[in-house]
């Protein structure tokens, strides 16, 4: 028994003297609770809603006000025609379009019923369902308010729900783009950071440094194979999702692949940057997986919409490359948008790539210390 206790004591000593283990044991759960508590919210908050009011009468005005003042929604635009709907969804800020039919009030008064169309962005099925449910609840409340005036003939505002882009609300539409985003950055960053630190650990890096190879040659030499393989990976995932889930790319495949190549390049350069900081393979794996996995899953908009997060977490998400790529990939794959709608995000990714590669080359030590 004594031996056992002696051994247990040693294990405690090891743990308390190794800050990395402590971080895993305490740091991660604490971070997770905080993030889950504040950033992740399955409630609807500030969901963008656009109105196409073909009637523009007092009732529609009241209903619109009620919806906006509920606190769940934020008005993005007032549309004028049906043609604008497709476009406004592409822009990405609007999650729902509410359409009031012509002569809304008159129909209510004369026929006792009028219809409202709710069109939601199906590329985020969870959000779409929530948003339409909230809207319908508000409309139902409104219904009760105005019915109360005419007890015999209840007035009915009938909401009609339609999902754009993903009519069946298939969740693959949500998770396949997210999975691609996450896998690419984790694997690329992990792979490049490990291969470089491995050379450091095995001592072969010393000999490479002393050779005529220049740092940029070493870096690119490390990057090229993973670049090609990751690219094949993307194609593999797309083909698989098409075969198994029937998920096809709505927009231009060429654009999608081009954006993927940019993102892969970015992820690889993140790995290189990590390798200039990490002194051992273990450290590299730790930083790549633990340091990057959690923020990517939780804060990039992969599962939990960014709009629902508190400000501070939203600001953090601006720093994360995956956030931009998820937007791009969803736009192209599910909404079928063209470059014009994703040029902003593309620009951000491009500048990040240039920045990281530049930093890596600068930090890459020509000597051992």
């Amino acid at each position, binding site marked *: 028994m*004594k*031996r056992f*206790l*002696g*051994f247990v*004591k040693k294990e405690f000593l090891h743990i308390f*003297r190794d800050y990395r283990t402590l971080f895993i044991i305490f740091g991660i759960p604490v971070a997770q609770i905080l993030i889950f508590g504040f950033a992740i919210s399955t409630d609807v908050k500030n969901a963008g809603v656009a109105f196409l009011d073909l009637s523009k009468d007092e009732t529609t005005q009241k209903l619109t006000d009620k919806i906006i003042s509920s606190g769940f929604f934020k008005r993005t635009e007032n549309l004028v025609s049906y043609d604008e709907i497709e476009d406004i969804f592409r822009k990405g800020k609007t999650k729902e379009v509410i359409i009031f039919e012509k002569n809304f009030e008159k129909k209510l008064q004369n026929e006792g019923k009028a219809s409202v169309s709710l069109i939601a962005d199906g590329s985020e099925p969870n959000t779409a369902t929530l948003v339409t449910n909230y809207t319908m609840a508000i409309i139902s409340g409104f219904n009760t308010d105005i019915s109360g005036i005419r007890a015999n003939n209840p007035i009915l505002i009938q909401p009609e729900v339609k999902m754009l882009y993903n009519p069946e609300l298939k969740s693959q539409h949500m998770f396949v783009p997210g999975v691609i985003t996450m896998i690419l950055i984790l694997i690329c960053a992990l792979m490049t950071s490990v291969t470089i630190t491995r050379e450091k650990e095995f001592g072969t890096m010393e000999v490479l440094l002393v050779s005529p190879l220049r740092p940029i040659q070493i870096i690119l030499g490390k990057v090229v194979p993973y670049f090609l393989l990751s690219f094949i990976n993307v194609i593999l995932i797309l083909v698989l999702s098409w075969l198994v889930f029937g998920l096809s790319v709505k927009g231009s495949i060429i654009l999608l692949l081009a954006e993927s190549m940019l993102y892969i390049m970015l992820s690889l350069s993140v790995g290189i940057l990590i390798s200039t900081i990490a002194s051992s393979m273990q450290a590299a794996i730790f930083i790549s997986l633990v340091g990057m996995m959690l923020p990517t899953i939780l804060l990039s908009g992969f599962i939990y919409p960014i709009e629902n997060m508190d400000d501070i977490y939203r600001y953090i998400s601006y720093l994360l490359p995956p956030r931009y790529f998820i937007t791009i990939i969803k736009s192209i794959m599910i909404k079928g948008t063209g470059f014009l709608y994703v040029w902003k995000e593309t620009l951000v990714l491009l500048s990040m790539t240039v920045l990281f590669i530049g930093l890596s080359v600068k930090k890459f030590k020509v000597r051992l210390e």
Partner: protein
Amino acid sequence: MNNSVITVRNLVKKFGSFVANDNLNFEVYAGEIFGFLGANGAGKTTTIRILSGLSAPTSGEVIVAGINASKKPEEIKKQIGYMSQKFSLYEDLTVKENIMLYGGIYGMSKSLIKERTENLLEKLNFRDYGNKLIADLPLGLRQKLAFSIAVFHEPKIVFLDEPTGGVDPITRRQFWEMIYETASRGITVFVTTHYMDEAEYCDRISIMSEAKIVALDTPENLKKLYNAATVEDVFIKIARPN
């Protein structure tokens, strides 16, 4: 002789079809310093692992400290001490913590540990180092401490696997004097080394080559037999590695 602490008869160890130890026969006597030499890959490590109860023989009889290694390998561990070059002490623990840990593992009482710790620190001139982390000690001191800890529980036999690699010549000699002193207390020392001059410090040595023992005698007798001036010359004559 019946004061053998290690008896090996017809020991064979195979890994699949590869024969690592091919019919080994030898005995080690109490209080002896026994040198176990051989080129890399000759099969030394395999044998040591079997003798220290870490691995089971494929066939043959191996008796260590009166215990049959095939039947009760766990029992052997209580009777022996072990120190290797690759690992000896926990770097992120202090000197005293390491001593306490190993004392506890070998089932020594707290008072016994305390008493022997005092003696150990005194002997090694480590008085001020008690609370230093191993990582902060120079290599020579670490090796001496590791050895002292390996024999802390006064085992019957202590196995030393290349204990003096890379250490400066003065410390190496001090280390061997510690080995001598230990052997004079009746503890058998079974040591492997690449330093041929250290082979000369042993009472008897055996040389392994390609899974077999090709020589077993005192260094003096071997030098006479092979007409060599040093053990190194004997080694070069008979232990050519492939």
